[in-house]
Structures are given as C-alpha cells and as structure tokens.
C-alpha cells in the first residue's frame, strides 16, 4: 500500500524537487502561513507580548513533546507523561504545604519539594521501562497503566482540588521576565524597580520570559543528547531496527529503560514548571490530553510512530504549529472548539504527506 501511494505521488506535480522540498518543510511552511494569516485576521497577534505569552504557555508542551520524541523514536509511546506531570505538580505542592506548616523557610521548602519531585519522577519511568523490557508488556499498555496509576495518586494527594497556599515566590519566578524596560527611564533585570508607581505598571515593557532561556537550554541539551551523544545514536538504532541494535552490541533493554526514565523525568520537570507558572499544584484532568497533544506535535514534526525518525527541534516546531493554531484562532475571535477539529485535520494531513514522500524528512 505504501509503495503504491508513494509512486503515485512521485508521478504527480509534487514529485518535482520543489514539491519534495515543500513536503520536507511543510510544517514550517504551514507555521509561516498561519503567522501571516493570523497577523491579518487577529488584532495584536503580531506582537512581542503575544509571542512571549505563547512561549510561556507552551513550556510544558515543549517538555512533554521532547520526552515523547525519545520514546517515539524507539518505536514506543508514553501515554503517562500528562498524568506524571500532574502527579509531580500536586506532589511538589503537598510537600511544600507540609514543610511550610512545619515552618520551614519558603525558599528551602521550594528547593526541597523540587528536588524530591524530580528524583521521584524517575520512578514512573523506571517502572514503565522495566515492565516493557523485562515483562514484554507493549509500551501502549504499560504506559496506559501508569497513566491510571499516576492519575489516581495525583487525585489522592490533591483530593480532587488544586493545592494552594504556596509561597508567592513560585509564580513570581515562573512568570518573571529577564528585562523590565520603561523606555527612556530604566532597564531593570529580573524585577521591576520598586520605585515605579502602581499606576504606571502597565507602561513597563516586559521582555524575555524566564521560561524562554530555560526551555531553549533544555531543548538544546536534549537535542544534543539525541543528535551528537551515544545516547541518541542508540535511541535511533533501536528504533531503526531492534535486531540490528542487538547485534551491534547495544544493551537494548537497559537503554529502553533509560529512555522511559528520561521521559518521565521530563514530565516531572514539566510538573515543576507548571507549579512555578500557576503558583498552585494542579492534577491533570482527562480533558487536557497532554500525552496525545505531545504525540501529535511529535508526528507533526515528522517522526514516525513506527520509530527510527524524529528530532527535538522538529517536535518543538510541531508544538508551535499546534500553539499558534490555538492562539491565532482565539485572537481572531473564532470559537475555540474549531481548534480541536483543526488539530485533527492537520494531523491526518501530516501523516498523509509523510506517506506521499517517505524520504522527504
């Protein structure tokens, strides 16, 4: 079936070199097209404030898509990332609440909670990895089981309510900016000068959300690990051909466990980001579907669910496509519900294009 469709595509207009190049970068092209269209249809779409907001909101999806990229390259899937993230968020919140109640200084409470959660978030991945490699449970089932377990634990910890009463520093840092500028008067790092009267706060330009350098560094490190490091080579090797990977002496099981541990660690990190940005501990709702949107971003970025293909920056591009689709539609005053439909259509188009040009990316 594959070959047939590809051959037909090859004969058509899109079989030309230009067509091939277009297919290879269609997600980027689509993003560009969206940016142009929404600039015309949405008021204030094309503004630094809006773009910064998009980056801020997408920090969590960036991390989850990066996590999913590693797993998808191995030919697996991790459905638990969204709920592990929620578990990390409420887990950290609960630890902070308990430590604050024991009159620990807020700074220490935050540091201890983050450390505990980041270490703890290795555990779901470890279980996933062992269940998948040692007990040969398909990744879909193993991580779906973990999806239920993490969801139940998060709900138990939070009792079904967001956990508040946390230190103010959280959202101050999570929503902070690198530069606060009032043209002609001051440029201030990390926080606005206390001297500025409340009435003039709105005049201050806030530039570079702190999450921007954070996510760029995180993605760059992950991209390096995937492209340049042995870890990445092994990841691609397993996804390309499990047998070949075994023959070439890669400890496949050990590596797969590491990949799932990395995935749930990044989900835990996303939970930490979540608590910094919202200032409260949030459990993940079924509606959020973080894991599915993460997979969608990875697929939009050109990865194949069959494994062997995928790149961190391409997945990040996929996240941006989904993000600007949502943001642009909202700013253009279109009902948010169209977004769900648009995502669905876009995903199918992505896969069909990849089928038509199997070698494009």
């Amino acid at each position, binding site marked *: *079936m594959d070959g047939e469709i590809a051959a037909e595509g090859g004969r058509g207009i899109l079989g030309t070199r230009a067509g091939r190049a277009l297919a290879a970068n269609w997600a980027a092209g689509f993003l560009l097209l969206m940016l142009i269209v929404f600039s015309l249809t949405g008021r204030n779409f094309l503004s630094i404030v809006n773009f910064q907001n998009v980056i801020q909101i997408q920090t969590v999806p960036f991390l989850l898509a990066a996590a999913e990229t590693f797993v998808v390259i191995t030919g697996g899937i991790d459905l638990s990332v969204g709920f592990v993230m929620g578990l990390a968020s409420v887990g950290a919140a609960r630890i902070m609440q308990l430590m604050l109640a024991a009159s620990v200084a807020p700074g220490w409470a935050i540091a201890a909670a983050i450390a505990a959660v980041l270490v703890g978030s290795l555990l779901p991945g470890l279980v996933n990895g062992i269940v998948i490699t040692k007990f040969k449970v398909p990744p879909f089932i193993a991580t*779906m089981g973990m999806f239920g377990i993490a969801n139940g634990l998060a709900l*138990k910890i939070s009792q079904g309510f967001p956990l508040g009463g946390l230190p103010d520093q959280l959202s101050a840092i999570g929503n902070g900016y690198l530069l606060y500028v009032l043209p002609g008067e001051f440029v201030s790092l990390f926080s606005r000068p206390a001297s500025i009267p409340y009435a003039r706060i709105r005049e201050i330009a806030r530039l570079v959300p702190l999450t921007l350098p954070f996510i760029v560094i995180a993605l760059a490190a992950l991209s390096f690990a995937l492209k340049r490091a042995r870890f990445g080579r092994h990841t691609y090797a397993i996804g390309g051909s499990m047998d070949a990977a075994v023959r070439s002496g890669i400890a496949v099981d050990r590596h797969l466990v590491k990949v799932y541990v990395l995935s749930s660690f990044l989900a835990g990190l996303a939970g930490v980001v979540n608590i910094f940005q919202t200032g409260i501990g949030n459990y993940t709702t*079924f509606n959020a579907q973080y894991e599915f949107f993460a997979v969608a971003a990875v697929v939009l970025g050109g990865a194949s669910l069959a494994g062997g293909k995928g790149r961190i920056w391409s997945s990040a591009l996929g996240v941006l496509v989904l993000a600007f689709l949502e943001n642009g539609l909202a700013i253009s005053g279109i009902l948010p519900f169209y977004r*769900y439909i648009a995502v669905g259509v876009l995903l*199918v188009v992505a896969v069909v294009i990849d089928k038509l040009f199997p070698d494009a990316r």
Partner: protein
Amino acid sequence: MSKNRQPALADGAPTGGRGRAFASSVKGSWVLIFLGLEIAFFCFKSPGFAAFDSGQMLLFYGVQVFLLATAELFVIITGGIDLSVGYVLGFASIVSIKLIGWFGSLGLGTGLSLLLGVGATLLVGLIPGLVNGALVAYLDVPPFIATFSMLGVCHGVSELIINGVYAMGLPKLASDIGTGHLMYVGPGGASLFQKPIVDRGVSVLEIVPNIVVVTAIVVGIFAFALARSKFGRHVYAIGGNVDAAVRAGIPVKRRLLGVYATSSFLASLAGVVYAFMYVSGKADAGASLLLDSIAAVVIGGASMFGGSGTVGRTMIGALIIAVLDLGLRMSGTPTFDKYILVGVILILAVIVERYMQEAA
C-alpha cells in the same frame, strides 16, 4: 506475540449459550477466578455489596464500558486502536438529544420522535467510524493518529453544537426508559415496564434495568457476529496476519472500514444510552472511559498486536472494572483508588496472560 490467532478459538462468546463454548473460552483463565475473588472481597469488605440490587447497579453503571469495550475489541483484534470512542460517545449523547428535540418540534409524538431521534443518531454515529476506517484502510494512516484526529473532530463538533454547555431537554419518557426496569414486583403483583404506584415505605422489587437489557442484546449480537459470521472470521484473519488475509482474498480494506464503523456505532449507542440515563449530553461524557474500555479488552486477554480476543472474555474484563468501581464506592473508599487499581490490573493482566501462554 499471541498464540490465539486461529479464528476457531474465537468461539465461545456468551451467546453460544452458557454451556461448553463459554466454558472453553474461559477455561484455564485466571480472569474469571480473579473476578470471583474480587466479588468475594467486596462482599466481605462492604456489607450490602452481596445484594441483588448491587448486582443490578453494577450492570447499570457499567453499560458504557460494556459497549465501548466491545467496540474497542473489534478494532484491537485487527491490531488497531480506537482512541475516539469516548468522544464519539459524547458526540452521540448530544446529537441524540438535539435530534429528538428536533423531531419533537415537528409535532411528532414523543415515542415516535424518540425512535426517529435514536435511529438517526445511530446513523450519524457511523460517520466517525467510516472516516476512521477510510483513513486507516485507504490512506494508510496509523490507527493511533487517525482515531486521535477523529477524537479532536468529535470533541470540536460536539462543543460547537452545544456551544460549550450541556445538551438538555429530553422528554420525560426518555429518562423513564433510561432509568426504568423491565419488570416490577410489588404487593399488587408483577408489572412490565410500568413502576406500580405504592405507598411510601412499601418496597417494589425492580428487575433488570432496561438499558442493561438493550446492552446485553446488542453486545450479544456483536459477540455472535464476531464468533460465528464471515465478518468475524475476517476480522480475526486480518489481525492474525494482514498479508495472509490479503492472499486469502479477504477484502481487507472494506472489512477495516466495517470494523471502525462497528466501533463508532457501538460508541454512539453508548452515547444514546448515556443521554437516556442522565438526561443530558456533553462533549466529554466519555473522556474518562477510554482507559476503562481498553483495559477491559486487555484484561480479557486480547493481544494489542491483534488476532485474539473474544467478547465473552472482554465482558469479564469489563465486569472486573465495574465490580471494582462499585465495590470501592460502596466501601467508602474515594474512587481515586479505582484509577490506580485499573492501571495496576491492566499491567498485571498482560504479564499474567503471557506467563500463562508460555506455561501452556
């Protein structure tokens, strides 16, 4: 992966009578033993669980999972997955209420508008499945992506229809059917469908909720189709080995279309039943049921790689979840524990199943 790839092993869905066929399908099966232990545990743990009414309640609140699990089973046997069932359920719950309201506004009688509304909803409910099937079979889109996309489309369209709130306004007759029972036995004798009017404090024995009857019949029909019809044999053959199925002259693409249509038909029925039970429709009515329905199929021993699984065993898987749900509720444990336990049982089920097959 699985050794149960022969269609012959598909025999023994519950419609084959409660006799030998059924027994053979669960022979040596730990799931039935597990279900028994689970029921015994909850009977012991929460007084009142071992009652006729709890049994009925369990089936009543389980209908959505029974239907969605059957839907998922067909797809999983072909080696696919249908992520859209939960949102097709929500979509159908909304469409049924809107259509029934529309037929009612045409001046048709309540009964007729219910009938036409339900019929039309089930027809509309085929569309998501046909699109899924076309994407999977003809455009070679992976089932995960195709059905996830359909999930989004159903979610979006549902919310657009109701503009982000609930669908409401079903006639009272609908909820009478949805929450009613087949038979009532009171002091004045037995009656069918109509609950007798009795004085306060006089108890009326209610026997079998209507929707449980409907669900049992529909699941039974699909169980029969899977176990005995040519369609069913083809479904197993496709899951066992697609290439062999093609060589054997099975119209694989048409069958896949049929399988995904079956899935969304059953999900739509679950949505209609939801509307009749709760007299409301909402887009995310079935959002949390995806885990339960896939878990039921997998606990029932079907392989995610396709080719194996029966409706009978899937129903046992669904019952394990339903018992867990009601048992936890009745013993006063927060339902949060249910998600954890379903997750654990899901993983253990696959491990135990593998172990059993290797031992066999």
